[in-house]
């Protein structure tokens, strides 16, 4: 043990002694992401060009973003962090940052400025939540519905409240097995004004009101926990409508040609991006920072939108969004941020849910078990 420590310390010293040139960067890098089409878009937009620039660099992908917080904690505890760059949702990034498991980022030092010279801090703007989070995409949780299951005589659903209207739109719905988003939608459809939703939800009665509203459709709900569930249920025709990430729905509609359409009303925006684990060895940290600088520049973020319908996090990337790389369709109208789609939106309320999550989670789970 002692020997290992001495060895490690001397290695660290040697590494620290020389400045971080390309040859001092680790030639292998472990990226953590979500798998599926999303990871494919990152491979195409980020790591493939990056590997072309850096010959001999090995990139290992680990599809563990779903349990990134728990795994990073365990790695930290065991003193053996094997990840270099981790893709997480903003809420997880905030938690990791608070616990000191993620490295703090200085946007203007670690991130590229926009091509017109705007600093990274201004280019990302409000999306830079927390001190460790490097935003990558804006995605939304929204609804898709089977076009061939819309009852005759009824209009296609275009209002969030049609989720709760089982009379006009009979059939099962799939909702995520957690209170976030569901509680907001329930209140919104129970007559609460949009800008009062969180005030109401902060009270005991408000939480009960939301659960009561959800109770009216409880028998018609299939609860999902993985993003792939709702697309499968929609393709099966097992549900009439269901919530999931908009990129998944895009894939179902445009790539898989299923009779499904989007209902963008009251979609909830959320952010996804990178963090770098705290206390990486010098050479791996240099590699991770170099990769981040490259992968979050204006062009790269815009490139990702060629492969998946998530909005780039930089303001300067938006005009560069082009066509889908394989289908050749314009991607702009499929972005959650497109003005046509974003008429009525929510932004995930990080502060509210950080304060109330445990409490409301417990109530929600108890209600589910009833």
């Amino acid at each position: 043990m002692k020997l290992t420590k001495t060895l490690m310390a001397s290695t660290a010293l040697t590494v620290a002694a020389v400045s971080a040139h390309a040859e001092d960067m680790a030639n292998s890098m472990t990226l953590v992401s979500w798998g599926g089409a999303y990871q494919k878009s990152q491979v195409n937009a980020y790591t493939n060009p990056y590997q072309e620039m850096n010959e001999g660099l090995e990139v290992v992908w680990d599809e563990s973003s779903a349990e990134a917080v728990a795994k990073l904690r365990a790695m930290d505890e065991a003193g053996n962090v094997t990840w270099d760059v981790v893709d997480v949702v903003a809420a997880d990034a905030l938690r990791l940052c608070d616990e000191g498991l993620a490295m703090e980022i200085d946007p203007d030092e670690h991130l590229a400025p926009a091509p017109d010279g705007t600093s990274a801090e201004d280019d990302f703007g409000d999306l830079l939540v927390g001190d460790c989070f490097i935003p990558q995409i804006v995605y939304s949780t929204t609804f898709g519905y089977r076009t061939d299951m819309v009852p005759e005589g009824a209009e296609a659903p275009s209002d969030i409240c049609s989720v709760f209207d089982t009379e006009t739109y009979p059939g099962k719905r799939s909702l995520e097995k957690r209170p976030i988003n569901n509680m907001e939608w329930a209140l919104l459809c129970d007559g609460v004004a949009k800008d009062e939703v969180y005030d109401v939800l902060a009270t005991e009665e408000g939480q009960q009101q939301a659960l009561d509203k959800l109770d009216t459709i409880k028998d018609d709900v299939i609860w999902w926990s993985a993003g792939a569930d709702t697309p499968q249920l929609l393709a099966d025709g097992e549900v009439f409508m269901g919530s999931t990430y908009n990129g998944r729905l895009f894939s179902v509609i445009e790539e898989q040609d299923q009779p499904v359409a989007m209902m963008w009303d009251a979609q909830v925006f959320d952010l996804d991006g990178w963090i770098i684990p705290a206390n990486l060895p010098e050479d791996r940290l240099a590699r991770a920072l170099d990769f981040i600088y490259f992968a979050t520049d204006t062009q790269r973020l815009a490139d990702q939108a060629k492969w998946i319908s998530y909005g780039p996090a930089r303001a300067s990337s938006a005009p560069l969004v082009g066509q889908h790389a394989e289908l050749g369709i314009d991607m702009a109208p499929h972005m959650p941020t497109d003005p046509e789609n974003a008429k009525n939106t929510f932004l995930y309320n990080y502060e509210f849910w950080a304060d109330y999550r445990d409490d409301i989670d417990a109530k929600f789970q108890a209600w589910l078990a009833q």
Partner: protein
Amino acid sequence: MTITVIEPKPVPFVAAVVAAAGAFCGLFVGTAQGNSLLGVFAGAAITAALAVVFLTVFRQEKAARWITTLGTAAIGFAFGGAMGGLIGLAFGWFFGWFIFWLGEGRYRSKLPPYTTSLQVFYHFLFRVICGMIFFFLITPIVVVMPLSFNAEDFFTFTPEMLRLDPEGYSLKHYRDFFTNDDWQQAMWNSISIAPIATLLSVSFGTLAAIGLSSEHVPFRRPIMAILISPMIVPLIISAAGMYFFYSRLGLQGTFWGVVLAHAALGIPFVIITVTATLVGFDRSLTRAAANMGADPVTTFFRVQMPLILPGVISGGLFAFITSFDEVVVVLFVGSAGQKTLPWQMFTGLREQISPTILAVATILVAISICLLTTVELLRRRSERLRGMSPG
């Protein structure tokens, strides 16, 4: 072989039994059409009516069976296309046969003449229960096979598939498995980890079993209990423990870490099977060998090993399967570079429900069947050569 003279049975009895079977089948058809109760009654009524007609008015077995088979096939086809036709065909064939098998009393022909009605009933009830257990065990495995040839990227029997339209089927998920780097990497990891882990478990497990079976070893039972513990302790606990232990040693996230972890999981299986074979091993043979000048190592390989080999091999098979199937420990001890097939299937199922998983499952099932058949054939052959079985 007929051992009982058969005689036609009373029509009401036959009609009642056939109606019960019809109700059971009707339940499935009815549920598929959205009305279980109607299905039960219609199934019972139709089959009972057929039984009465065939056994009283129209007692021409061949013709009657053809008529039922083709008739139900046509009805099935009219309602449900090709698939409905096939199901109808099977139903019609079965009920045509069933009515005459019961009506002519043929079901008694292979039972001794002195069996009572109750015994006959139990005899067939037993078979039905066995059949249902078999069905229960095998259906989940069989149902994924056609789905793996799905032309779409979902776990769905599409209308094209149900119509048996070739358009609805494709080999693209198999192509994906053989061309996708992630899957190929996972397969090679599994193929290289499992044999080494097996080799280690077999060596250590056999040695431990031999040592523990000699009487002069102190604390045999506690040692045995500790060695067997990976099999008894919940896997997740072993996994978490190994994770922290291996991290300290620098083994976490390495190839050898996963191999060692899997070897530890496999050792109990080898110990148990080898200990069981050693019970029947005659110790005087080793003493005889020593008496003739053989050193312990020679004795082990020339005398003891050949005799306990069946136990070693079956223990090795279990150890191999443990490593090949294992997902919990590898998730902890491995890192993304050691992703095995079960791990890849697990993440694939969670993040992207893609039928490639079903294609892999089908391939694995096919390989297991081949392996088991080979082992069984080899076993029979060696038994025959040793003259242990007459076949």
